């Protein structure tokens, strides 16, 4: 299969210096590809580095090491203003907290149009307003909302404004960092349906970062599991849920409570014990079965390959 890679992340590292010569390795050598038109889910607990990965890809943080290639071109490193503008237009982000990611002093019109202004995509005020109103309708809000301020909206509506802002510059790739975790259950479904619809209509590619595993499974084509700054497992979402290999993935999956009392009564939780790993060598990311990758050592690799073939 000829795979059309939109984004390649190669050995990405992000270390934070926290003073007293201490370094936190938030992201420590993560590699994956995202194909054009797919949704790539990134899951993990807080502190696993999933958000840092997203933010480093879009250059909100400067990477400590590694490469990010978008359409084959390196995103990081020294860039002229023109080059940066070009990338920023193709890559957009939707943030977790819809109330702190919108400027409370700006009207919805100005918030959504900011990208249009920066990239000089509209000629005059009339066109600018028309474009914003069109975007508002796309995300399911009213034209009249353009003159209002963010505090006049509910959480779900604010998240729609955030989505409209990301769509304004017609990006190819959107990073959604926990876009629904701050919303109520019934509103979550609305926003997820909207994201799915937009993807279908516009051929968008998503990096969907979340800790709600059932929602990630629902929206993603492929899922990567992060643990302490490393990607420990990566597979198609069906495969990952039906046939998890890495002990951490198993424990994470067994911890999700499902809205099904019968299942909950019979659930057995698996706890993750990092000492089960073979410590004789530094683990690497290896393909245990086609399209299914696990971080393991050579010894574990043989075992995991057997595990993967068994099922």
């Amino acid at each position, binding site marked *: 299969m000829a795979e059309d890679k939109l984004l390649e992340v190669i050995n990405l590292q992000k270390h934070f210096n926290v003073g007293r010569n201490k370094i936190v390795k938030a992201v420590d050598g993560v590699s994956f590809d995202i194909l054009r038109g797919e949704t790539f889910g990134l899951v993990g*607990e*807080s502190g696993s580095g999933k958000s840092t990965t997203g933010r480093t890809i879009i250059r909100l943080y400067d990477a400590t090491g590694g490469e990010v290639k978008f359409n084959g071109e390196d995103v990081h490193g020294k860039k002229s203003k023109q080059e940066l503008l070009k990338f920023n237009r193709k890559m957009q982000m939707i943030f977790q907290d819809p109330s702190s990611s919108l400027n409370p002093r700006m009207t919805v019109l100005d918030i959504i149009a900011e990208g249009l202004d920066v990239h000089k995509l509209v000629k005059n005020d009339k066109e600018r307003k028309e474009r914003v109103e069109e975007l508002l309708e796309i995300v399911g809000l009213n034209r009249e909302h353009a003159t209002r301020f963010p505090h006049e909206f*509910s959480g*779900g*509506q604010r998240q729609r404004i955030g989505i409209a802002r990301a769509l304004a510059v017609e990006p190819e790739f959107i990073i959604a960092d926990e876009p629904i975790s701050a919303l*109520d*259950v*019934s*509103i*979550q*479904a*609305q926003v*997820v*349906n909207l994201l*799915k619809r937009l993807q279908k209509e516009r051929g968008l590619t998503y990096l969907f970062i979340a*800790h709600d*595993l*059932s*929602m990630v*499974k*629902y929206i993603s084509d492929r899922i990567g599991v992060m643990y302490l700054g490393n990607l420990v497992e990566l597979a198609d979402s069906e495969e990952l*849920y039906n046939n998890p290999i890495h002990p951490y993935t198993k*424990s*994470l999956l*067994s*911890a*999700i*409570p*499902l*809205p*099904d*009392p*019968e*299942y*909950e009564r019979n*659930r057995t*939780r698996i*706890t*993750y014990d990092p000492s089960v790993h073979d410590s004789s060598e530094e683990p690497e990311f290896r393909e245990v079965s086609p399209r299914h990758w696990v971080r393991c050592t050579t010894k574990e690799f043989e075992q995991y390959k057997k595990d993967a073939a068994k099922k």
Partner: protein
Amino acid sequence: MSKLLEVKDLKVSFNTYNGEVQAVRGVNFDLNKGETLAIVGESGSGKSVTSTTLMGLLPKPQGIIKSGQILFEGEDLVKKSVKEMQKIRGNDIAMVFQDPMSSLNPTMKVGNQIMEGLIKHQNMNRADAKKKATELLELVGIPQPDVRMNQYPHQFSGGMRQRVVIAIALACNPKLLIADEPTTALDVTIQAQILELMKKIQKETNSALIFITHDLGVVANVADRVAVMYAGKVVEVGTVDDIFYNPKHPYTWGLLGSMPTLDSAEEELYAIPGSPPDMLNPPKGDAFAPRNKFALEIDTVMEPPMFKVSDTHYAATWLLHEDAPKIEPPESVKRRMQGFSKMEGEQ
């Protein structure tokens, strides 16, 4: 089983600059000894206001109990004075809050925070209280309790802090424990540990538990019975199986349908359209009617009463009236019902 708590027609309002917000508009439920009742609903449905009212922690003077009774072991808590409530709170009824960071005092050693209640309510001396507090830390699964007693909250991780909060709540062997979204701020693996811990402790102490959450997965895990709240009212109440496998209220359908199950592969989730009503001017009739595609004409005129589905299961929707048209629940909910009846057949 005897009734520990009965809430009858509780109405709570808040006076604000914009007018009166009717947060709770006539809530009825009861709770037996040793039972777990989960209250689910969206933000603004009144579930947290209900629990703070039970604790007597309603902010004064803006929060007002308009009417109703809270019978705890037969005594009406609404009529209690502030002094009397102080004796009950933390002793007979204890609470676990959502955010373990802000519910602990950052300037006080963890041990002292647990001992506080013991000294005040149980008239223990410091030495006994210290011994008991160490036992409690051990009970909630904190390693090295002797060392941890002398540490401050910032030295604990999120999950460990929530364990401390639970230890404080359990200190005086409360008959009723109210947990308001105790695991929402935690990671899934930590959440699973805390839920297991709470269930284990409940079994040991036989205290009743009111569990407030919006996460239906957690509800399925902990609850014996479930009350679904919408716009300040309980719209459906039943055993956990009633609610998950035989839901009757369209709002419950919406809640269940909007969560993907791990084996669901539908193109679109069943989303409830619109957003919750403004409680400054609650709509006339059924508050859910504007968001309900199954709404009947009567829904806009008259509020539905609680219809009885079975001895344990009640729902407030006109769809259960004998003159109402037969309505098929949405696909995802129907599959849930079928899956369950198949499962029952096999047993």
